[in-house]
């Protein structure tokens, strides 16, 4: 690695007033041909390149990004990490990801600020509690940690929460995954970019892909704003624009793109040291290390590529947040934004091969892709390297929409669809 970060490098650079730090990655001009081209320089794409190099020794790789790395959903999500999904297939994939999170800062030599502060999913009705117990039991059978809390235990853990039985939707309990938490989203993109770059991967920003060139049913490269770039294999990790990229290869995907909004408040003193999610009233909230409350809203029902959504969605979410946390009613919101999420009918991703040979897609993560970043990249790298899916992502094929083997995770996905 060009510039290993440590306490010693920090001290050494302090002596030169921190003016001599190397850039974390190069900005090369694209070569004419690569073994693998990854389309999309978000967390998942960069993680794919990183694990291609690290796990499979494939280093003649380019990551091609339309804007700047981590500027899409990677920099727009609410940074929640957990693995408490319902079905075996999803649990295994997200749990692999969570295990990678646990060692990611050391692995990347980059502090991604993964903070396993616990994730609470509130239940507000008997049916909510039955669903929570079912999901926690399913998790534990899969070796994933989970606990069911009653209302008093929730109140003890989050003293500022409104646990009154007179609330519009009283809290009856919650599921708790203690190993879940949050991470610093930008650092995840930058850490994977730096790690991939150090192993020889070219990261090419401001270079939109405008076409996917094929020859006899096989991909041969991509047309870009900087000209044609040849490739033996192409992996597309384009999140909200996956359908646009698929159309370039003559494919149709079961995906719809929707705006998903989030917002942060002004920084306030530490008041919430865990993550609280509620599917029923639809709000989820945590407090960043900087002090701002990070709040996630729901998606707009309509198809949208505009990276902004409806005000009514935010209004609904903040109504729920203020009902859960009356003390936040006078906190001012600083910023609000939207990202474009690619939603599959079963709220599960598509990670695998396509009808075009040597063309692979990793998409459909919808509203919950951030937590999967390392696991998604790890599994997708394996898929590209071996031209067949790893057993972790084999169930998440495009074919499942023909076979009918859908994996319905709408309940555990946690965002209102």
């Amino acid at each position, binding site marked *: 690695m060009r510039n290993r970060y440590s306490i010693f490098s920090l001290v050494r650079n302090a002596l030169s007033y921190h003016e001599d730090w190397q850039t974390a990655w190069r900005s090369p001009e694209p070569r004419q041909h690569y073994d693998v081209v990854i389309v999309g320089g978000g967390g998942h794409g960069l993680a794919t390149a990183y694990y291609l190099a690290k796990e499979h020794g494939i280093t003649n790789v380019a990551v091609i990004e339309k804007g700047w790395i981590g500027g899409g959903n990677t920099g727009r999500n609410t940074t929640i990490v957990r693995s408490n999904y319902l079905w075996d297939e999803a649990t295994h994939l997200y749990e692999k990801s969570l295990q990678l999170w646990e060692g990611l800062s050391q692995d990347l030599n980059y502090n991604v600020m993964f903070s396993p502060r616990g994730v609470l999913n509130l239940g507000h009705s008997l049916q909510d509690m039955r669903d929570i117990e079912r999901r926690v039991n399913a998790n534990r059978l899969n070796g994933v940690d989970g606990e069911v809390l009653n209302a008093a235990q929730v109140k003890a853990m989050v003293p500022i929460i409104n646990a009154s039985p007179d609330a519009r939707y009283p809290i009856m309990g919650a599921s708790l995954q203690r190993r879940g938490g949050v991470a610093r989203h930008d650092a995840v993109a930058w850490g994977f970019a730096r790690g991939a770059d150090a192993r020889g991967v070219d990261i090419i920003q401001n270079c939109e892909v405008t076409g996917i060139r094929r020859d006899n049913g096989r991909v041969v490269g991509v047309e870009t704003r900087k000209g044609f770039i040849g490739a033996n294999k192409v992996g597309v990790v384009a999140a909200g624009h996956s359908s646009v990229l698929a159309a370039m290869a003559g494919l149709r995907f079961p995906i719809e793109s929707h705006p998903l909004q989030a917002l942060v408040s002004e920084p306030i003193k530490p008041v919430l040291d865990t993550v609280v999610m509620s599917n029923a009233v639809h709000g989820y909230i945590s407090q960043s290390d900087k002090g701002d409350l990070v709040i996630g809203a729901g998606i707009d029902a309509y198809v*949208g590529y*505009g990276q902004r959504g*409806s005000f009514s969605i935010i209004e609904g979410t903040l109504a729920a947040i203020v009902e859960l946390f009356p003390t936040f009613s006078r906190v001012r919101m600083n910023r609000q934004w939207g990202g474009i999420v690619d939603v599959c009918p079963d709220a599960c991703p598509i990670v695998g091969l396509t009808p075009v040979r040597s063309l692979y897609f990793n998409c459909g993560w919808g509203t919950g892709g951030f937590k999967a970043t390392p696991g998604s990249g790890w599994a997708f790298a394996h898929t590209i390297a071996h031209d067949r899916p790893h057993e972790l992502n084999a169930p998440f094929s495009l074919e499942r*929409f023909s076979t009918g083997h859908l994996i319905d995770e709408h309940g555990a996905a946690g965002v209102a669809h």
Partner: protein
Amino acid sequence: MLIIDCPWCGPREQTEFSYGGEAHIVRPPQPDALSDGQWADYLFMRRNTRGVHLEQWVHTYGCRRWFNLARDTVTYKIAAVYKPGEPAPGSTT
């Protein structure tokens, strides 16, 4: 917020309406004759257009009737409103 011009009630705020997905998806006339792939195409595959998208809406908190919009999915600007059974604007059929 979108202002949607309901063809029966006139312009109203978006919160009165519900989104009904991509328009002009025709139910297969002979469902028994469909292959699994054709079923998947009918049930799940979507255009997901970046640009002018033809889509169904229903005036849930108004007249409760369905209609179609041609709406740009990047600018969110509504290009046309038309009733069910009417041809899409710009189409030749």
